[in-house]
């Protein structure tokens, strides 16, 4: 097998249109991109106004959890759907945000100068590990949630993309990192809580986490950030950068011959996706109330990917809707049929990749085409 990937089939998201080179005004293009903005507005209305009005505290909190996965999925849509990088290890960046937040919440719940309970259990006299210390500060935590993934994804991505590692190699490499990190956290029980993870958070930046009103407000923050991420993705997709990214996905060598460095283009998309995963992870912690290696390992990373694959990775709304639906499916189906949920997920993977590679977002277009193809011959027949 040669290292170059076969070009993606057309119909898998927007294809470069040579006539757009001069950025001339086009009515249909205008409608398409601003239509998406209207879509985001409607989506924001549903998430921020309708859902809180209709749902109970418990359901709203669950929806918040799905929104965290949806934030990760927006990033996956950018990196994988538009950039062609199959990021199978987003759990790594999810973990960066989640553990930063969890460490802060653990320290905060214990009060000033406290040492986490699980550490005292192992060694009552152990000092707080040095890398925990800065997370006493809420400001540092918030900065870390954004900066840590930028640094990690930046260094990783730079090394990987400059060496022109791509396709399946990239996918396996990124999955290996998620597996390794899950092992690492599971194995360093005295430093990170190990496989049990971190839980029992009482306060969120000074506010009581047991107060349902506060929980509802955290949901609003999550939903708001999801909308912001969608806006960022929308702007990126319609920018020059978005076009270059799609061009890199479809014909990396041609982009290189045109004088751009594909590695830099991919790097930006990879870093943005990592930051989104980290934000999703950070907000997951106060909502779910626990973070453990189970939430970041290989299976969890694949679950994050499944949402984008199912919804339609190259479209703007596909990954979000896919992630929300899968999150809902995971919690409701795993309650009612338990083990059956795994089969549903497995079948979804198989059938979506086999029959609907562009996800449910491509369904309307497909139905339109189907209807048109049915109608066209019959019209000709009656005429």
């Amino acid at each position, binding site marked *: 097998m040669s290292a170059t990937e076969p070009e993606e089939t057309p119909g898998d998201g927007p294809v470069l249109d040579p006539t757009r080179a001069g950025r001339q005004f086009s009515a249909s293009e205008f409608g398409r991109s601003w239509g998406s903005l209207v879509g985001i507005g409607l989506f924001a209305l549903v998430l921020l106004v309708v859902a809180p009005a209709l749902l109970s505290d418990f359901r709203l909190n669950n929806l918040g959890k799905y929104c965290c996965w949806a934030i990760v999925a927006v990033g996956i849509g950018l990196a994988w759907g538009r950039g062609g990088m199959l990021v199978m290890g987003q759990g790594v960046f999810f973990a960066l945000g989640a553990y930063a937040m969890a460490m802060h919440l653990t320290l905060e719940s214990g009060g000033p100068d406290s040492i986490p309970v699980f550490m005292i259990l192992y060694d009552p006299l152990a000092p707080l590990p040095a890398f925990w210390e800065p997370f006493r500060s809420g400001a540092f935590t918030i900065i870390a949630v954004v900066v840590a993934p930028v640094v990690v994804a930046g260094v990783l991505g730079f090394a*990987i993309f400059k060496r022109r590692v791509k396709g*399946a190699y990239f996918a396996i490499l990124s999955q290996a*990192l998620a597996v390794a990190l899950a092992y690492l956290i599971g194995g360093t029980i005295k430093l990170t809580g190990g496989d049990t993870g971190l839980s029992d958070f009482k306060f969120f930046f000074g506010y009581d986490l047991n107060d349902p009103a506060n929980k509802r407000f955290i949901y609003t923050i999550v939903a708001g950030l999801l909308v912001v991420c969608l806006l960022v993705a929308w702007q990126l997709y319609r920018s020059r950068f978005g076009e270059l990214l799609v061009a890199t996905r479809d014909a990396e060598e041609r982009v290189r011959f045109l004088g751009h460095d594909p590695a830099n283009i991919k790097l930006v998309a990879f870093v943005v996706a990592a930051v989104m995963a980290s934000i999703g992870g950070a907000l997951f912690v106060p909502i779910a109330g626990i973070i453990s290696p189970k939430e970041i390992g290989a299976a969890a990373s694949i679950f994050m990917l499944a949402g984008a694959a199912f919804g339609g990775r190259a479209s703007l709304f596909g990954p979000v809707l896919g992630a929300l639906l899968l999150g809902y499916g995971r919690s409701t189906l795993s309650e009612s049929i338990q083990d059956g949920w795994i089969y549903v997920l497995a079948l979804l*993977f198989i059938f979506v*990749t086999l029959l609907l590679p562009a996800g449910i977002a491509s369904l309307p277009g497909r139905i339109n085409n189907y209807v048109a193809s049915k109608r066209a011959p019959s019209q000709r027949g009656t005429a």
Partner: protein
Amino acid sequence: MESLIAPFLNGTADGALLLIAALGLALTFGQMGVINMAHGEFLLAGAVCAYWTQQVVSNTDLSILIALPVAFLVAGALGLLLEVTIIQWMYDRPLDTLLATVGVSLALQQIFLQKYPSGVPVEKPSLLDGQLDIFGYAWPLRQVFTIVLALACLAGLGAMLKYTSFGRRIRATVQNRALAETLGVATRNVDRITFFVGSGLAGVGGVAASLIGGTNSQLGTRYIILAFLVVVAGGLGQLRGAVIAAWTVGVVTAYLADWTTGSLAQVITFVLVVIFLQVKPQGLFTVRTRGLA
């Protein structure tokens, strides 16, 4: 640990197991370019076959010998089924084979988990109960058996690729599919049989795995990523590269586990392989092509 050589020997045995898993992948991934994430679950199928034959044949020595071909056939048949139902539609979409087979792997794992929630208890054969005394370390014969098995698989596969007409057809199809077809090679049949053999090897590896450690639903997950890394690090489609990489990974992990802890050793090995791939992205041995990048 009682001796310096113990991790070396244990690591060699673990590397041998990894090699059997990687050999199958070298065929399906290295030669055909198909990323079969369910390959690890074919190991699991092999372990189940070892358990089944023990239910029928009570002599543990005999049953293991019978289990080897049975596991090869069963895992091979599973692979063939996978090829015919799913993979054959996706040869031009390698990343999609990855996703679809992730689904298959999830389902197979869950089936195993429901049927055997606590894993399959494979009895160790009495003939392999003994130990070999090497520099004062009592080396379990079971590990020696794994190494012998890995070498046999390697020799068999290498000889098949090099000397048989079928092996020639595989290599021809890999190097230039269109030309091979022009010369009358039925490339679709070659695909299917290659997949059968590659998956069957995983079954054989599963039998060996069931002798060494416990067999639970996570068996496949434990080996699959490392096996993929071994194949990539060795150089795609290069058997000698896979041998060196698997052996190195096995021994290095064993020594690291001795010095630190088991899970930390896994992490360091992963990171080392990833760093190695930064230095040599094409692996140890490369087939030079004129393709870009």
